[in-house]
Every structure is written in structure tokens, then in C-alpha cells.
């Protein structure tokens, strides 16, 4: 086809024959086909240009123009050639008297100039003016639309545009007004009279019968009105006149005009409009305005400034009858496009006056009940903007509506409402309470909003630290985990309150520091869900660091303790946290299995770095240290509850690596011992236990070549004196008072060495049959954890009456039946036990090993003896530190299970 068209083109060029429609269609196919050769396109271009010059008044010229435009668009390399060809065609059309078509060519040229950066057309002013005043309406319209791209001087353009604002055809009037609006940006007009004239013409056209003309007139009113305000000597009056003129258009019957009017009102600049006029645009009540009108009228009688007074009184009268409450009308408009425009405009004007902003926010809050989602959304967006600039102060009576948006059925509205709440300023604590309450209710109904709700609570708390402190102190009891197994830490409400509590200290008013520090520790258990909500504020590592610091902050602890319990001395410095180093930890929420299972809702920890695990456990240990202070300050019930919570937290933790497993086991045991030995046991006569513990500690210290601490020495002295003094309990009490639990910090790997003993099939109701004088084989299953093959192990069995104890040496290498991962070995063997007849005769011919009828595991642990040979070989400083710390805690009697 390309060849065929090309040959026809050549033929046409030779014969100068006019093109037919069918042939032009073929040409278009070639033009739009990217594979058509450039030479063919060039030929096509040539014949099209020629056709423009020789086609007379043929309607095909429009098609030719379109094809040339296509060529310029699809083949940018040819755009210059198209441009030049069209320019020559333009002048030939002019000389041929075809002014309408010349205008059309000008429009195409202007379009090319815009699209391809071709040079300006630089049309002669005289030609432009003569074209504008020719009868063709289309031609005028095209000329006006493209006038600014034709290189015409601004003064000529102004004259033409201004004149054509009275064109009988509305679209020409509109184009002329648009031209005037465009000219306002060229900064070439300084003559006040000229500006005033243009402004007046636009004001006249605000009453045009056609919607499109009125819309364009609104644009001119604001643009030239602003210029008039800048140039006029009576600035104050002129600024108000412009504003009032626009206010009088906001009740136009056309939606388009109303939208445009509010857009224009948004362009009113500072100092252009007086505050009282601005405020009147929000209220239909014109009492104050009427007084002002009366004043202006009375001034009319005076000679000086008479015309000014007349102007003022008339403008104000017009405002009172047409423009008062303009924004109120806009916000109540039937069409959401208008409401949106009014809201956008308000956003820009609220900076002009604080009173205006306050009244505007009242109106906007009332709009939150609008039946259209788009309107509610726009109102919220505007309130959000205003709140961000501190311009929203919600009144108590408005809270109902404001809070209603938090429960809105629409996700978008709820989201927007929460966004607004983030930055809103509440004046009263009751408003704050109801806000928090509504957010929590919303959380119940829409659990999917949790992350965002937490974020809002955080912002809300940070913005109102004192209110947050009050709320948290009121609900503090509800946040405590219930001791007897039922924990409420996993509820969304609890987590939400915890978010609020951790946000308060970041408040500017610094009053949030009265948050009980253990709440920060509780918050750690929710770190996954909380950090999801606070993603826009801080990352998880930062949050964890923050919570760590707050929860172990001695000062915080001291502040929450009543005055009658003075702060106890802290023996050891709190080690600094090794934070912000590893970011490889990932947290994820685990679905809740049951409401009572705290573990289910707590984060599952993906251990990519043991440092994080230690950090986590150190937090728990830090909290335990804090609890000690609670215990000492007679807050035993609280201390027990918190200890229980800590125990739960650690026990639910599922470590993957042996190292973290050891650390967890240690922490769990540490907490269990504290909980069991409980600070409430002060004064109980524990001389025997203490003696045993001290001897164990001394043994360990000897192995580690470490010196006993002053407390150990003191305990030892007390024990010696206790035997001879009747007032021993008092001594112990005094001793206990001087003790302060140090912050235990896990710094490196801990290996948990342990053994479990099970007697399969054994039941305390069915004791093993035993024939006196014959040995009995007791089947035992032993599981060893982290015990090397070099270790030596004895199993000691004690008879039920305690008269007979037999010790059996176990060789882990010989009796191992399986070796699992993590240094876990299992041994199954029959343990021989022999009792002499004379001893057992008195035992009803039955023999039950002592303890088997009790807790088997406990017995097994107690009776398993590990030869601590390895420890002598590796007395590291860490071990020393560990034991040193443990030594101070007399409650930790079984610390020797752990090896570092």
C-alpha cells in the first residue's frame, strides 16, 4: 500500500490535484504505521502542505491539518518541517482571504508549539486583531484560546480580550475572560484604572446568563481583584470588595460556578480581607454587619471620603443580603463538589484569623454527621489539616459527633477520623477520656484497625501527657496480670492502654513520667503488635530500647514508690543496653488461640541473632529487679503478680538455639526461685536452708577463685550468731533489709546442664513388688541435657523410710540409647537396688524407693549429682561475675545447675 500511496502522492504533486477523502484515509494509515519509511512520510507531508494551499474552501483541509498534526506527533523529527509548512500555509490563507481557516492553522501551530517546543509563531499584532474581529465565531474562539502562544503583545491581548468579554457568543466571552485571567500573571499591568476596569467587567459578568461565562468571570474577579488590591490606594476597601463579590456568587444556581467561587475565595491572601468580613462569611446573622452599615451610612453625610463611605455602605449592604454566611452555605450545599471546594478554601483561609479558624472548626465538626461519605471525608481532611496547625480545639458538646466518626461504618472515615485525632488538641480530661474510650470501643468492633488505633493512642498520649497519666493511673489496676493463672495481658484493650502509657513520657508537658515503670515491661510483651502500630514513629529496635530504658529506669521506680518507702540503694550499675546493633530480628503476630493464653498473643520470636534474645531476657531480669523494690516497699501482691507475669513470659518463649534455651531456662529458674522464695518470707527461720546455700555458694566461689561479697560474709556471721541468739529472726530481718537485688544481666551464652529421671509404669498406688534379700531392678529413663561424655553421674536411691540409700554410678557413654540435638542424651536402664532382709522385714515386704511416690522429676533432679570437673578447667571471668551476682541472692540455692 505504501508504494501505491506514494505513487499517488507523486502523481498528485505533479498534477496538483485535490485530495479525496479515501486517499487521505490511506495516508493516515501510513502515518500511524511506525514501519512506514521516512521518505514516504516526507512525501505525504509535502502533498498535505500543498493541499492546504490549493484546496480552496474544501472541508478536506481540516482533515489535512489533522494529518499534519499526526505527523508532527508521531514523527518528532518532522515537526519542524510541519511547523514551517503550516506557517507558510497560514500566510497564504490570509492572503487568500480565508481568515477562518487561517485561525484554524494558527490553532494547530499553537498546539505544535506547545507539544514540540517549536518556536513561537510571532504573529503580527495587526493581523491578530483583524482576525479577531472577523465574523467567524469559531475563528475568534480559536484565536482567543491560543492567543497567548501567538507572540502577541500583552496590551493588544488585553484590549482584544476585554472587548470580546461582550461578545454575544458565550464561549467567546468565556475564552476572553480566560485570556484576561491568564494575562493577570504576566505582571505587565500597573495602571490602576485599567485593572479596575477589567475587574468591573468581570464583576458584571458574574451575572451572565451562561454558567461557563460566570465561572470564567469568577476567575478574573479573583485574579484582577488581587491586582487591584495591590495597586489601589484604598487597599482595605478593595480587598473586602473582592472578597464580598466572591461571597455573593457562592449561591449561584450553577454547581460549576459555586465550585469556582470557593476556589477563588481560597486564593484571598492575608490582609486582603478584614477579620470581621471574614467572620461574617461563616455566619448568617448579620447583626454586627448592620451596625457597620449604619456607621458607613452616617459617614456618607460628611464631605471628606464621601464616595468611599458610599462604597463601603453599599458593599456591606450587598454582603449582608447576599454574601453573609457564604461558607455556611457552601458547607451545606447539596453537591459534594461544592462542599469539597468550600473545605479546601477554608483550609487556606484558616491561617488568616484565629477566631475564623475556631468558628470554621465548629462548622466542620458539625459536618461530620453528613450523610455523604465524600463530605464527611472532606470535613475530616480539613480538620486534620487544621489540627496539624493547632487550629482545632474540640468543645465538649461537639465530642459526641467527633467521636462518632471513630465508630463510622466506613473504613475510610474511621481512618480519616483517626488521622485527625492524632493531632487534635483536647481541652479537657473528660474529652480525652471519652476519646480513648471511643478508640477502645472501636477496637472491639473493628479489630482490624488495631495498628492504626495504637498509633492514634500513642499520638494522643504524646499530645496530652498529663491526661494520659491520669487515665493510666485510673486503669493501672486493670492492666496488672491476674495472678491466679488468668492473664489479661493479651487483650487489645490492655495493649492499647499500654501504648497510651508508653506515649505519655514523650509528652511536651513532662507530666507523663508518673507512669508506673512496670507498664513499660508489660508493653515489651506486646512489642510486636505495638511496633506495628507505631511503625510511622519508631522502628521496633528503637521501641524496644525505649521500653528497656523506661522499664529499668531507677528513677522511674523510685518515683512510683510512695514517699514513706525511701529509695533503696542500688548495688550495681545498670549495664547499658547494646542496642541498635542488630536489625535482623523479625517479629510477627501469632494468632490468638484462646483468650486466657497469654503466650498465644505474644510475639513469636525469630531468632536470627542471640543478642536480641539476651536483650529480651535482660528486660525481664530488669523488671525482676524492679519488682524486688516493690517487694521491699510492701507491695507484695504487686510483686507476686508481676513475677508471675514474668514467669509466664519466659515460659511461653520458645527458643530455637541451645544458647538461648540455656538463657531462657536460667531466667525462668531465676524468676521461679524469686517467686517461690518470695520476698514475703522475710523473718522466717531458714537457718538450715541458709547454711546450705552459703556453703554451696562458698564452694562455687572457691571453684571460681572469687572472693565472697560483703553480704555473704554478713549472712555467714549472722548464721553463726543465730545459733546462740534468741533474737535471730530480727537479725535476719535486718539482714534482709540491707539486701538489694542487683540487676542481673545476661551477656554471653549460658549452657543449661540438667537431667530428668522417669520411672516408666511406676505408680504410687502400685508400688514395685520386692522380695527381701533379693535385688530389685527399677527401670529408669534418664534424659541428660548438655552433659558431656566426660561427665560423671551418680544416681542415688533412698528407701521410703530413709533408712537406706544406695548410689549407682552411671556411665553416659555406655548406656546412651539415643543422642538428639542440642546435647540431649537419653539413657534407659534397670537400676539395681538391694536391701538386706533385716532392714526390709519391717517394711511389709514391699520396698518403695523414697521419693518415687512423690514428685518423680523433682526427686530425680535433687538426687542427680553432677561432678563439676569441667568448671575447674574453665573458670572464666564471666563465670565469676555470674556466680558473684548469684551469690548475693541467697534464694538461688540451685544455681550450680548452670555452667557458662
Amino acid at each position, binding site marked *: 500500500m505504501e508504494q501505491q500511496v506514494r505513487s499517488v502522492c507523486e502523481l498528485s504533486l505533479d498534477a496538483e490535484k485535490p485530495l479525496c477523502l479515501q486517499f487521505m484515509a490511506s495516508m493516515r494509515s501510513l502515518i500511524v504505521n511506525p514501519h512506514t519509511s521516512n521518505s514516504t512520510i516526507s512525501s505525504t507531508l509535502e502533498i498535505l502542505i500543498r493541499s492546504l494551499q490549493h484546496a480552496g474552501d474544501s472541508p478536506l483541509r481540516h482533515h489535512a491539518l489533522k494529518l499534519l498534526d499526526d505527523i508532527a506527533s508521531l514523527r518528532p523529527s518532522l515537526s519542524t518541517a510541519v511547523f514551517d509548512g503550516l506557517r507558510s500555509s497560514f500566510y497564504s490563507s490570509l492572503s487568500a482571504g480565508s481568515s477562518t481557516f487561517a485561525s484554524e492553522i494558527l490553532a494547530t501551530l499553537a498546539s505544535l508549539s506547545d507539544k514540540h517546543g517549536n518556536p513561537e509563531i510571532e504573529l503580527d499584532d495587526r493581523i491578530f486583531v483583524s482576525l479577531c*474581529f472577523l465574523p467567524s465565531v469559531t475563528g475568534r474562539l480559536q484565536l482567543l484560546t491560543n492567543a497567548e502562544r501567538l507572540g502577541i503583545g500583552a496590551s493588544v491581548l488585553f484590549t482584544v480580550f476585554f472587548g470580546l468579554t461582550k461578545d454575544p457568543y458565550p464561549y467567546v466571552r468565556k475564552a476572553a475572560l480566560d485570556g484576561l485571567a491568564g494575562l493577570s500573571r504576566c505582571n505587565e499591568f500597573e495602571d490602576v*484604572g485599567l485593572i479596575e476596569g477589567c475587574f468591573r467587567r468581570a464583576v458584571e459578568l458574574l451575572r451572565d446568563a451562561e454558567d461557563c461565562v460566570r465561572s470564567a468571570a469568577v476567575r478574573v474577579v479573583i485574579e484582577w481583584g488581587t491586582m487591584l488590591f495591590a495597586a489601589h490606594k484604598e487597599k482595605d476597601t478593595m480587598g473586602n470588595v473582592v472578597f464580598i463579590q466572591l461571597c455573593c456568587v457562592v449561591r449561584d444556581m450553577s454547581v460549576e460556578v459555586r465550585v469556582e467561587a470557593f476556589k477563588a475565595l481560597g486564593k484571598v491572601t492575608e490582609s486582603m480581607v478584614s477579620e470581621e468580613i471574614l467572620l461574617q462569611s461563616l455566619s448568617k446573622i448579620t447583626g454586627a454587619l448592620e451596625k457597620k452599615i449604619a456607621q458607613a451610612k452616617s459617614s456618607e453625610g460628611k464631605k471628606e471620603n464621601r464616595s468611599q463611605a458610599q462604597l463601603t455602605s453599599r458593599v456591606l449592604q450587598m454582603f449582608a443580603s447576599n454574601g453573609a454566611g457564604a461558607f455556611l452555605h457552601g458547607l451545606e450545599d*447539596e453537591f459534594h463538589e461544592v462542599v469539597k471546594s468550600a473545605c479546601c478554601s477554608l483550609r487556606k483561609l484558616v491561617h488568616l484569623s484565629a477566631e475564623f479558624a475556631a468558628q470554621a472548626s465548629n462548622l466542620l465538626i458539625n459536618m461530620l454527621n453528613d450523610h455523604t461519605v465524600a463530605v464527611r471525608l472532606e470535613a475530616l481532611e480539613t480538620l486534620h489539616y487544621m489540627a496539624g496547625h493547632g487550629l482545632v480545639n474540640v468543645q465538649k458538646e461537639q465530642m459526641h459527633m467527633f467521636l462518632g466518626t471513630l465508630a463510622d461504618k466506613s473504613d475510610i472515615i474511621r481512618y480519616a477520623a483517626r488521622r485527625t485525632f492524632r493531632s487534635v488538641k483536647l481541652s479537657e480530661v473528660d474529652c480525652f477520656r471519652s476519646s480513648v474510650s471511643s478508640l477502645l470501643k472501636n477496637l472491639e468492633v473493628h479489630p482490624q484497625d488495631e495498628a492504626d488505633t495504637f498509633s492514634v493512642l500513642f499520638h494522643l498520649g504524646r499530645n496530652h501527657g498529663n491526661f494520659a497519666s491520669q487515665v493510666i493511673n485510673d486503669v493501672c489496676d486493670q492492666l496488672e496480670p491476674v495472678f491466679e493463672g488468668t492473664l489479661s495481658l493479651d487483650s487489645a484493650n490492655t495493649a492499647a492502654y499500654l501504648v497510651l502509657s508508653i506515649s505519655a513520657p514523650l509528652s511536651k508537658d513532662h507530666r507523663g513520667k508518673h507512669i508506673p515503670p512496670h507498664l513499660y515491661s508489660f508493653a515489651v510483651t506486646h512489642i510486636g503488635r505495638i511496633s506495628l502500630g507505631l511503625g510511622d514513629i519508631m522502628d521496633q529496635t528503637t521501641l524496644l530500647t525505649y521500653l528497656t530504658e523506661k522499664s529499668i529506669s531507677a528513677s522511674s521506680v523510685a518515683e512510683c514508690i510512695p514517699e514513706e518507702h525511701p529509695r533503696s540503694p542500688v548495688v550495681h550499675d545498670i549495664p547499658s543496653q547494646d542496642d541498635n546493633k542488630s536489625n535482623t530480628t523479625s517479629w510477627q503476630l501469632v494468632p490468638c488461640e484462646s483468650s486466657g493464653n497469654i503466650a498465644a498473643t505474644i510475639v513469636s520470636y525469630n531468632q536470627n541473632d542471640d543478642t536480641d534474645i539476651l536483650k529480651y531476657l535482660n528486660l525481664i531480669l530488669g523488671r525482676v529487679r524492679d519488682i524486688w523494690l516493690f517487694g521491699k516497699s510492701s507491695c507484695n501482691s504487686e510483686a507476686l503478680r508481676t513475677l508471675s507475669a514474668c514467669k509466664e513470659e519466659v515460659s511461653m518463649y520458645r527458643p530455637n538455639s541451645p544458647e538461648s534455651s540455656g538463657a531462657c531456662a536460667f531466667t525462668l529458674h531465676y524468676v521461679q526461685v524469686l517467686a517461690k522464695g518470695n520476698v514475703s518470707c522475710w523473718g522466717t527461720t531458714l537457718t538450715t536452708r541458709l547454711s546450705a546455700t552459703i556453703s554451696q555458694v562458698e564452694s562455687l566461689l572457691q571453684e571460681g577463685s572469687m572472693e565472697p561479697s560483703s553480704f555473704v560474709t554478713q549472712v555467714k556471721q549472722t548464721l553463726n550468731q543465730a545459733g546462740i541468739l534468741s533474737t535471730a529472726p530480727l537479725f535476719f530481718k535486718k539482714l534482709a533489709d540491707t539486701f538489694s537485688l542487683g540487676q542481673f544481666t545476661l551477656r554471653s551464652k549460658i549452657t543449661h546442664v540438667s537431667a530428668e529421671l522417669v520411672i516408666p509404669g511406676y505408680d504410687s498406688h502400685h508400688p514395685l513388688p520386692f522380695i527381701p534379700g533379693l535385688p530389685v531392678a527399677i527401670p529408669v529413663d534418664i534424659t541428660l541435657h548438655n552433659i558431656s561424655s566426660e561427665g560423671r553421674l551418680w544416681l542415688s536411691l533412698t528407701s521410703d523410710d530413709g533408712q537406706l540409700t544406695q548410689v549407682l554410678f552411671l556411665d553416659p557413654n555406655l548406656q546412651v540409647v539415643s543422642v538428639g540435638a542440642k546435647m540431649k542424651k537419653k539413657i534407659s536402664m534397670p537400676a539395681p537396688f538391694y536391701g538386706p532382709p533385716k532392714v526390709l522385714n519391717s517394711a511389709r515386704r514391699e520396698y518403695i524407693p523414697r521419693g518415687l511416690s512423690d514428685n518423680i522429676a523433682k526427686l530425680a533432679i535433687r538426687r542427680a549429682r553432677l561432678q563439676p570437673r569441667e568448671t575447674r578447667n574453665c573458670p572464666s571471668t564471666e563465670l565469676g561475675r555470674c556466680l558473684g551476682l548469684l551469690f548475693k541472692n541467697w534464694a538461688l540455692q540451685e544455681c550450680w545447675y548452670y555452667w557458662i
Partner: protein
Amino acid sequence: GFSYPDTDLDLDLLQSVTVQPPAPTISLLNSWLPPSPVMGIECLVLGAGQEIGKSCVVVTINGKRIMFDCGMHLGHSDDERYPDFSLIDGSLDCVVITHFHLDHIGALPYFTEVIGYNGPIYMTYPTKALAPLMLEDFLRISVGRGVEEKFTADDISACMKKVTPIDLKQNIQVGKDLQIRAYYAGHVLGAAMVYAKVGDASMVYTGDYNMTPDRHLGAAQIDPLELDLVITESTYATTVRDSKHASERKFLKAVHDCVVAGGKVLIPTFALGRAQELFILLEDYWERMNLKVPIYFSSGLTRQANIYYKTLMSWTNQKIKDTIALQNAFNFKHVVSFDRSQINAPGSCVLFASPGMLSGGLSLEVFKQWAPSKVNLVMLPG
């Protein structure tokens, strides 16, 4: 034709900012006004001149006589209840009714069936649909009170058969010279403002109209017109009303607080218009807030009206028209009909009961039962 631009820039700014002189209006006095020699417009105010109720104005434009509205005065039970039609001198060319409220249409059956007017009657489609409901309900209440009205149910039926329904912005040619056109007035479903033109004289009779849209109706709309006379409703001309959003907020808060506290809310209201507006308001709020408290309406008339409202969507506001494809705003999910046996049923509820004036019927009965309890609430929407 094309006019060359006015290049004279030395215009007086005051001209452009001067208040346009108000359109010529007349005082609506209950008497003949002197005929205007220039316009050829005469006005006979038979009702609603310096009073509320019984709207009825007869205007003669260039020899053509139109009656705008034919209402009754509910505050009177004597002859004052109806316009004094005997004052009309000569025949009417047509009657135009603006909306279905009784103070605008109540006397029409009497005028056509008793007085004997037999000329054309124009009203919009919704007005023609809803007016018989209002009239029949009014008749039923009157009979219940033992008041004898000047027309019967058959008169209503016969009267409505004579009505020609019109659409908005539809040019109606009455005879050779008179042209009338209806414009949207808001206020109630089907309310219209009427433009009338005879020769070179033209006028607008507004009837009741709203400039602020509400939950189910838009604001009044009219073309830019050059008029010789405007007869406008002016009952609230000097009243500055609270923002509708603020009123709604207060209303909803009061109702919400009451039902949350376990109370019952009685809203005495007329069955048409205000009831539907409040239904939509509460329905929307109930839906958004996920409230489950039942909302009742007591009148069978309301049920019937709701059916009409569902079918006359093009007369509602933009929002309802926009969402019609998704949901008909008059398909209420929470609003259900009420049975008298439920008056003392336990639990909170909202009840719309007629009549709105608490002058008798169910609204008064329920009022007596519920008002003594402090937890209950009576809302008078006006």
C-alpha cells in the same frame, strides 16, 4: 448581533458593586390591591396574607386569571377555615397548586366539587400522588373529632381526577396567552415554584421553598428571570436558622443518649415530609453507628407515603439520586411499623407517631404513657 467591545474603562466602580434593586414585590394583604397600570397585574390575596395558613392568591396578568394554591387554615374551624372564593370576580383560567400541604391544597376539593370550579388544575406529579393521602387523612381525623368538613372523600377523588400533573421546567400553555412553568422548590417532595407569563408580563409565585438542602430534598432552583412580580413565602424571612448540621447534631445526640440509657424516644410528627426526612437521618446514623434499637412509625399513612417516596426519586436531592443504583434511600432497614401493644414493651426504642401537634391520636396516647419517666424523651421536630 455582535457588539464591539466597550473600551471605555472609566466606569464607576459603584455601579458594579451596587446591590441590584430588589425585584418588585407586593405586600400580601387580605384585600384587593390597586391594579398596576403599567404591568397589568392584579392580585387578590384570599389567604396567607400576613397570616400563616390558607395560602390562596389570585393573580390577573394581562387579563388572564390564575389561582396559586388553594389551602385551608387549620387554626380555624369556622368559615375562616376556607378562602372566601366569593371575592373572585369572574372566571379563573387555571389553578396551580405548589405542594401537598393542607395549607396549600386543603380547600381544593371544596373549591372544585362544592363551589364548582371546573377549569384546569395543575400540580406536579408527586403532589398529585401525595395530596389525596393528606386530604383523606385530614378528613379521617376530622370525622374522628366529630368535625364536619365541607367536602367528602368522594369529593377528593373527583377533584384529583381533574388535576393535570406537570413536570419541572415544563412549559405549559394554558389557553392562547398564558404560559406556566414549575421550578424545583425543595421544602417537600414535589414542591414547586411557579412561573407565569402572559404577553410581556411575568411573575413567580414561590409557595414554600427551601434554600438549604436537607436529607432527601435539594435546595430550590430557578433560572435567571426578569420578572414583574414575585410573590414569595416570607414566614421565616427574618429568621436566621441554625446550621442544619448543628441542628442534626443536637437531635442525634439527644436521641442517642436517650436510647443508650435505655429510654424511649417519642417524635410526634406528620406522616409526610418531616417524617421521611427524620427517617433518613436516623437510618443513616443507626447504620453508621451500628445501633440496633428499633425505630417505629405508627401511621399507615407513613407506610403508604414511603411507597410513593420510593418511586419519586427524581424529585429528591442529588445524593439520593446518585446512590439509587446501590440503595433506595427510602428502603429503611431500621424503621419498622409500630403496633399499639408495643407501647409498654421493655427496652429502648424510637417512635414516630402522628399527629405532630400532639393533639390526639397515638402521639398523645404514647406521650401520656412515656412522659412521666425521666429516661424517656419527647422530641418536637417542628
